[in-house]
């Protein structure tokens, strides 16, 4: 009886250990993607700040903005990379904040992250198409 109990306890313990290992791997993977995307974003943001400083001079107008962007495929490629990197980066941070500050669970955090990624990707690519096509 005692042996069976120990076996059951052992199985539960190993399941807990597996769960903890899976969680640690998931967290490490999120950390990794957040950092890799951050490296891309640091370069994108520097370029974007330069574009902003240039563009706001003398005020913003649709003709001026779209004159620069329409049919500009280098511009489209750059901002597509920017959007994709954001869609990787933003969900990790949002899910972390939700878990740490709003008491959101691990699974719910994963789904929240997926929803945010989809939103950023879809709206971001739509915006790129809107100003380039």
């Amino acid at each position, binding site marked *: 009886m005692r042996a069976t109990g120990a076996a059951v306890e052992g199985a539960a313990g190993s399941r807990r250990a597996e769960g903890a290992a899976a969680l640690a791997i998931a967290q490490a993977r999120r950390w990794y993607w957040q950092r890799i995307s*951050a490296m891309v974003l640091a370069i994108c943001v520097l370029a974007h700040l330069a574009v902003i400083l240039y563009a706001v001079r003398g005020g913003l107008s649709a003709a001026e903005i779209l004159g620069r962007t329409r049919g500009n495929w280098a511009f489209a490629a750059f901002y597509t990379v920017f959007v994709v990197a954001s869609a990787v980066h933003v969900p990790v941070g949002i899910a972390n904040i939700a878990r740490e500050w709003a008491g959101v669970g691990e699974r719910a955090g994963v789904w929240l992250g997926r929803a945010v990624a989809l939103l950023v990707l879809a709206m971001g690519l739509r915006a790129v198409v809107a100003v380039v096509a």
Partner: protein
Amino acid sequence: MKAIAGAIRRSDARAHRHASWWAFALHRGSGLALAVFLPLHFWALGQALHGDAALDGFLRFADRPLFKLAEWGLVVLLALHMAGGVRLLLIEFGPWSGLRKDWIAGAAGVAVLAGVAFALALVA
């Protein structure tokens, strides 16, 4: 037990009287603000799908002091989040060691620089 440890951590003001904690808080706060702004930014650019006039309509609507102030704040937050993020990347992946507290000041300096540059570009 976990909740109690969390409450103690939260109420420990000494842990918050520290440049590194402020760097963390500002990085998180700026990240959250930028994440909230991003869909609005994309939506605004998406107006171009409905033609030049639609985008112009939005730009005219946004051409008021309160919006300019918000845009200025977002540029500062963007520069702050980027510089703070580069600081983290250098701490985690760079070859340097030690406290590197002055890097926080450096990141704040980048944000100030971006703020001044954007303000100057606005009035130019």
